[in-house]
Every structure is written in structure tokens, then in C-alpha cells.
């Protein structure tokens, strides 16, 4: 006899993902879907897709989905959640979407203590539009809009989103994770599940920042890209829990 130890979660639609080979957006999609399955909330979840490589996320989750304008997913999510407070609402956003054009929306969804979960994909690049600098691109990183390497004097410094949002009283839970190793993927799963659970318990705003790869725009193989997460990204974006209002209670 045999037992299925790993299979496609129900909440992940059975269609091919459009992501590039080895792009870890796919891993995070699966983790979110697994979480939805495990919590049994597919029928009462509404997801918000951003503008970015994950724009087509509306095709990939089996719950109701909305495609929001670039950066505005937190505002759209707020509109949904304030209309349907008993439903589960999450956004899935890239670093350009959340930390550049959507900065105000991200800060204020936290400040407003919206009982919503953000899955934030930090891949230090604008994937969708072809590899431009993101607010989270590392110093020295070569992108199509920082062709001589990101220079703090010209393009400024990378933004650490979890650290910034943790300063806001409304943030209930903020954790930074990565998907470069099996252990980290499992930790990411745990963090995502915790974030959704906190929403179910009405704890307020939760964000999981996932350090994710973009092999194509980084000009690396998928395996090299995960390596680069370890050697370059994580040192600048330390993993860990930046806020957890349930921690010491």
C-alpha cells in the first residue's frame, strides 16, 4: 500500500503556470494553495493579484480572485474585506508593486490594522517588465535601469519592508522567509499558514516577505539563482520574525 505524501493542492488550479523555468513564484503559489487547503477556506477566500509577473495569479487559485492596479492591491483588498469581514482576503504582490508604486497602500493597510494577509515576493527586480531595478535591488546590482550597478548616490538604497512595517502599531505579524532551500520552503509554508491563521483569528494585518528568485532577469540558472539568494540577498535581508503580537502572550 502507498500513501500520497505530496500532490497538487486543490486550491491551486490545474493549469500550467506561465512563469519562467525555475522561477520560485511557483513554489510560493503552491504554498499559499496548500495553506488554503489545510485551513479549508477556499470557498471563503478572495485573493488579489498584483501587476507583475504574478498578474495571472487570478488564473492559478481556485478561490475568487481580483486583478488590482499596479500597487493598489492593499486598497482593493481593504474594499473587499470591509464589505465582507467574515471572508479571508489576501494579496500577492511583487517588490515593485508593493514597495515602489504601492508604498502608501502598504504602509496604510498596516496602519489601519486591516485584517488582511499580504504575501510579498521580494525578488529584487521588476520581473514582468524585463529586469529593471526594484526598490529592493541590492547595491551594486546590475539591472536594465542600473546598468552600471545600483549606486546609492544615484538610485538610493534598498528598502527593508518588514523592518519598516514592523514600526507600525497596526502590523500584527511580519516575517521574512526565503525559498532557496527545502528547509526555508518549509519555514515559508509555516509563516504563510500562520499569517492566514492570524487573519482567521482577527488579529490584524499580517505580511510574509518571501525572498524569491528571478533566474531570467538575474541572468542566472535556476540553481545559481537560489545560490544568490543565500549569498547575496539574505545577508541584506535577514530572515526572521519582525513582529508578532501573539509572541509573548
Amino acid at each position: 500500500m502507498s500513501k500520497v505524501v505530496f500532490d497538487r493542492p486543490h486550491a491551486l488550479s490545474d493549469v500550467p503556470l506561465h512563469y519562467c523555468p525555475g522561477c520560485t513564484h511557483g513554489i510560493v503559489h503552491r504554498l499559499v494553495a496548500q495553506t488554503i487547503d489545510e485551513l479549508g477556506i477556499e470557498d471563503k477566500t478572495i485573493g488579489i493579484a498584483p501587476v507583475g509577473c504574478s498578474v495571472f495569479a487570478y488564473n492559478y487559485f481556485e478561490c475568487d480572485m481580483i486583478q488590482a492596479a499596479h500597487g493598489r492591491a492593499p486598497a482593493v483588498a481593504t474594499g473587499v474585506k470591509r464589505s465582507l469581514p467574515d471572508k479571508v482576503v489576501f494579496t500577492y504582490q511583487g517588490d515593485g508593486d508593493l514597495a515602489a508604486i504601492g508604498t502608501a497602500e502598504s504602509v496604510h493597510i498596516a496602519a489601519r490594522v486591516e485584517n488582511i494577509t499580504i504575501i510579498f515576493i521580494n525578488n529584487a527586480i521588476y520581473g514582468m517588465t524585463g529586469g529593471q531595478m526594484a526598490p529592493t535591488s541590492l547595491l551594486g546590482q546590475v539591472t536594465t535601469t542600473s546598468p552600471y550597478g545600483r549606486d546609492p548616490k544615484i538610485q538610493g538604497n534598498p528598502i527593508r519592508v518588514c523592518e519598516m512595517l514592523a514600526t507600525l502599531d497596526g502590523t500584527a505579524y511580519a516575517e521574512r522567509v526565503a525559498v532557496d532551500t527545502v528547509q526555508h520552503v518549509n519555514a515559508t509554508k509555516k509563516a504563510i499558514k500562520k499569517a492566514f491563521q492570524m487573519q482567521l483569528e482577527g488579529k490584524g494585518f499580517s505580511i510574509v516577505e518571501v525572498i524569491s528568485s528571478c533566474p531570467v532577469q538575474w541572468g542566472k540558472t535556476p540553481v545559481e539563482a537560489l545560490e544568490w539568494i543565500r549569498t547575496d540577498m539574505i545577508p541584506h535581508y535577514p530572515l526572521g520574525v519582525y513582529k508578532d503580537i501573539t509572541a509573548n502572550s
Partner: protein
Amino acid sequence: MNRVTFNVDRCKGCGLCVAFCPKKIITLSSDILNAKGYHPAQITEPEKCIACAMCATMCPDTVIKVEKEI
């Protein structure tokens, strides 16, 4: 026997499963091209599989199903 199944036409030949299998029993087929034009992953020595699901965990395209003999 433990069983690892690949949804071949979904595979993009990214090689992450190959890199993360602790038993080193996955390779990208050099000859086959799937419908999408990729060289899909395949298992070479299925009997060595420990059903750890590390391959599946790291697969971005949820290509892999893992069953454990019990």
C-alpha cells in the same frame, strides 16, 4: 516501492528537483522534448527513492507527485 510521478508536460526542465534530490536520482532527459519544448525531469533509479518529497517541495511547477510505500 516509493513512487515519484512527473506530470511531464508541465515540467520546464529547470533542474531544481535534480539539484535538491538527496539521492541524486533525478536527471533532465537529454533526448525527450515535452510539448512545451523543455527537456523534462525524469527519475533514473526509482528504487532508491526515499519519498522525502524534497524534489516536489522545490518544484515551482508542481510537476511531481510523491507516494510512499507503507
